[in-house]
Every structure is written in C-alpha cells, then in structure tokens.
C-alpha cells in the first residue's frame, strides 16, 4: 500500500499561538538560534490501489474540503517514498 502525506499548516498571516509558545520555551531549555516555530498537522494516508494522478487529485480535493480549513490553513500533498 502506498502512503500519501498531507501537511496542513496555518497560513503565514494567521496567528499560531502553539508555535509561538514552543518557540518562547526553547531558550529556557537551552536551545538558542530558532527564530520562529510554526506548528501544523501531518496526515499519513494509506491508499489502497495505485497512487496515480487521479488518486492524487482526489486526495487533493479531500485535503481542500476536509483535512484543511482553507479559511485559515494551507496544505500540501505528496507521495511518501
């Protein structure tokens, strides 16, 4: 079975309170030099059958309508190799 990964991240202009909280904590833990942190979601989909263009198009649609909230999020779809 093939695996397709959909990464969903908040749009750059949207506040990411989680990422900010993580970034602010890093220096306290002794990790310097990280200028910014954004936290998003990663979906791993196990696809039955071939992952051809048609399948990817469907997954793209799925990401657009369901996995991501395109009012505030962007997403990318890729085959995991």
């Amino acid at each position, binding site marked *: 079975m093939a695996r397709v990964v959909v990464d969903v991240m908040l749009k750059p202009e949207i*506040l990411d*309170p989680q990422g900010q909280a993580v970034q602010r904590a890093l220096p306290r833990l002794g990790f310097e030099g990280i200028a910014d942190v954004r936290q998003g979601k990663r979906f791993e989909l196990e696809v039955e059958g071939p992952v051809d263009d048609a399948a990817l198009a469907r997954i793209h649609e799925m990401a657009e309508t369901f996995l991501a909230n395109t009012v505030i999020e962007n997403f990318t779809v890729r085959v995991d190799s």
Partner: protein
Amino acid sequence: MTLDTVKHANETPDVDQPWAELGLKQDEYERIRSILGRRPTGAELAMYSVMWSEHCSYKSSKVHLRQFGEKAPEADTPGGGALLVGIGENAGVVDVGQGYAVTFKVESHNHPSYIEPYQGAATGVGGIVRDILAMGARPVAVMDPLRFGAADHPDTKRVLPGVVAGIGGYGNCLGLPNIGGEVVFDPCYQGNPLVNALCVGVMKHEDIHLAKASGAGNKVILYGARTGGDGIGGVSVLASETFDDSKPAKRPAVQVGDPFQEKLLIECTLEIFREDLVDGIQDLGGAGLSCATSELASAGSGGMRVELDRVPLRDATLSPEEILMSESQERMCAIVEPGKVDRFLEICEKWDVIATVIGEVTDGERLEIFWHGEQIVDVPPRTVAHEGPVYERPYARPDWQDALQADDANKLARPATAEELREQVLKVISSPNQASKSWITDQYDRFVQGNTVLAQPEDSGMVRIDEDTNLGVAVATDGNGRYAKLDPYTGAQLALAESYRNVAASGARPLAISNCLNFGSPEDPAVMWQFAEATRGLADGCLALGTPVTGGNVSLYNQTGETAIHPTPVVAVLGVIDDVDRRTPIAFSDEGHLLYLLGD
C-alpha cells in the same frame, strides 16, 4: 508607496479615496472632510470607516436605544438604585451589596462564527471577557445563548460543533465556568447562526475602572499580544454587511484566538488593578487600536499622542492603516501615570505579557498619531468615537404582519384520536428544541473556580461571590425569535419576563438587565420596525419591572440575501442572592412535597 501624512493630505486635496470600499457612504465621507477641513489621510479614513461602521457606531440603532436611558427606572426602585455605571461604558455595573459590584454584558459574534465557527465563537468569548475585565472586574462566569439552523441540515453539522468547541476551548482554557445559555434550532438561522456570549465579573466598588484618558503626561501603554493582520476591516465588512450568495465570499483574515494569552492578560491586569496602577483602561476589540485610542481620548480630558511605529508587530509588513484597523485579539490599552509605568511593566514581565509605551496624554484636544516621526492622524477624537453618524432609518409595519398574526394556532386541526394525540406529543418532545442540551453543556467546564452554585440544567446560573458571607449572583438569558416575529413589542417583553422569572425562581432578586439585539438589515423598513418595536417593548418592560438596562449589543444585518432572521432580542437578567445556600434548584428534593401553580 509614499506615506499619506497630514501634510501630504493637505497638499493633495483631490486624491481619489476608497471610502466606498471601506463601507462609508458619500455623505459620510463628505462629513469627514468637513470635520477635518481637508481630505482625510489614509490612516484617518481607516479609523473613521471602522468607527463609523454600524457595528461600532450604532448609527441605525442609537435613536431607539435612547429609550433605555429615558425610561430607566427611578433611583428608588431596587434596580434603579443599584446602577453604578450605566450604558456607554464597556459594560454596566450594579451594586450587589456588601461593597461588591457586578458587571455583565452579552455580545454577538454571529457573522465571524458562520465563516469560521471555532475561531469565531472563541474570539467572541475572548472579546466579552476583555470588556468585563476592562471595567476592573475579575471575570467569574460565562454563558452562551446560541441559535442555529435546522438540526438536521448538513451545514448545521459544520457550524454547531465548531461553535461549541470554540466556546468551550476558549472559556475552559480561561478557567471561567459556563453556567448557562440557550440552544435553539430554527431554519431562519440557517445561513446566519447567532452566537451570543455573556460574561459576568465581580469587583469591589472602589475597583471600578473607566475607559478614559486624562492627565497630560500620562502614558499610553499597549499590552498583550503582538499586532498582526487579523480581521483587518473585519469589523466593517463582517459585522455590517449581509452575506450575499451572488458576490464572491469576502473572507478577510479571520481572527485566531489565543486563550492562553488572554488568561495571562486577565491575571496580569488584575494584579495591575490591585496595585492601583491605571487611570483609564480599554480593551481592544472590533476596530482595534482605532477604537481604543479614540474612545480613550474622547472620553477623557485632553488629547493623545501615539507613536504607532512602537506597536509590537507579528507581521513587519503591516502598513500604519492596517495596524490601526487590525483586530488582533488579546490586547489591552491602559493610561498610566509616569511614576507607575515601571511597576506596570514589571507586572507585565512577570506574566510574560508584552507591554509597550506607545504614547501619552497631551493637554491638547486632538488625537495625533505618528509613524516614524511623521504625522498621519490629527483628529478631534470625539468625532471618531462618539459623534459618528446617527440615522433615523425609515420603518414601517410590514404588510404581512396582520396575516401572520391572524394565522394563529386556533386554526390548526385538533387531534381527533388517541393515536393522533400520541403522535403530536411525541413530535413535540422529540423536537431538537426540547431535547437535552447535555451534548453541548458537557463540553463546558461548569465547576472551575469552585463557586458554581447552579448551572445546567437549572433555570438560571448562579455563582457565589463571597465565600465568607455566601453572597451570590444569578443570571439567566432568554429570547424567543418566533414570538418576536409575531409581535416584536410583546416578544421582547416575553424574553425579559422569562429571563426575570428564571432568576427569581432560583431564589435571587432580579436587579438589572443586559441584552443582545439580533436583527436583519436596518435598511429594510420592516426589520427596522421590528427593531423599534422590540426596543420599545423592552424599555417599557424594564420600566415596569424596575430593572435598568445596563448595556448590551446590537447585531444587525443578520440575514441571508433578502431574508432576515426572526427578530431575536436576547435578554439577560442579573439577580442577587444574599445567601447562596438558600437557592432553589429545579429538582424535587423530597417525597411528599406539594406542587403549586402560580399565576394564571
């Protein structure tokens, strides 16, 4: 791009300005020009446009809302005598005895909650909590009167869980018990759900704070979250325009709430109050800095000078206009004497809250805003904040009203057989409007703070406010859009009476009311008539009951295309109880007790 300074505006009087895109009408734009004696700068235009929007200026509703003041109960009535701060401030304040004052208010976040249910509802809670905090009070409870489309409509499945998760996600994270609310399903709310949020706060009389900037030399401190591109223009576009299917959906950047930041803001602000470090304070909500600076300056004495480039940003590319209009959440603005600034900043540092001195109160009369040393705003603050346009919108009883009223329940066929009767009873009790609301209320923390005396499924929510004396307050919210559509005057009174009874039935003495008036477009004379009638009914009802209106919120343009929602005035009644141990819950407590029916 050149900076549109005041000087530049003087030199280029004939530049075309996007007043229409910003939601201003031609005559409103002309009025701005005549106030200023020149064309406004881009930044000034931004400020006026958001502050003169329906949402911020109440331009259509103001003439009707005046009745709440004019018909306010006399000082010798229980409620009239209890009023410490009335309409016009962030929230009204009532005296509940023993040196305590209570502030409460309902607000709407209808349109944002339809676009992005979770964040829309969450930031609705955040906004009303900051209003209460700005009065000097510790927020102690929230409530959420909600209205959705048909329970089985697919879009309700998108909107309702998101709204509930957003209210819970934000309120639970702030540690505010949710002590009640409403859930009503009706197809009229399909494209326009109503998400109203209420917050109650408690303080001592001497802790009441007002939104005003006075005392030349006092510093203006912006504290809380950094400013980003959230909801720019959202206030005018989202709250003042109708959703129209034919136009491409307008989706300005949605505001995202950070309840963790808000919790820090609450604790930090309360500590600042405890040390008596602020002179005036205002939360940043709709219209962001435009609103906070102009309202503070307008309500105080003297003027204000702001260095806008000092505002901490999340997005360095924001223009000054955008910074003025940004609706980034979790921010407050305080006026602080110079000698207290260091301590103020220290407390903010303790709570990991960013705080920046962005300006000061001047002995002038103008609100002046600078961007890297160049002046981009020079306005009389009252003209922005308090002297916006006022409309006497035409209103007329709709021609369908008579037919609607005549079509009453007496015309319906009566059940003729036991089977029919059974069917009808089942239909009524299986209606989503009668069903248990526990799927929703179980997602809200009702125990946090350890003072909750009554919450769901009780008639009113009740919290203890003094652990030693057992003093408490009760709040209920009610509204009935179907009834208000049949008769807006009586419908508003019905909501008032129901809410009043719910408070009284729990053992508390009703003292004051707040309301959220959810209606369609004020440009429709039929809607305007509903609004006029409902406010008149509510004002008359409050006078009769001796309970003043302490504040509230008007949400207009609730409609899909041409179709308005049912007129939905939601009324919140606050009561006081001297000893919460003497509350009356709804459940039967012992066998053998008798049932009485009161009233006719």
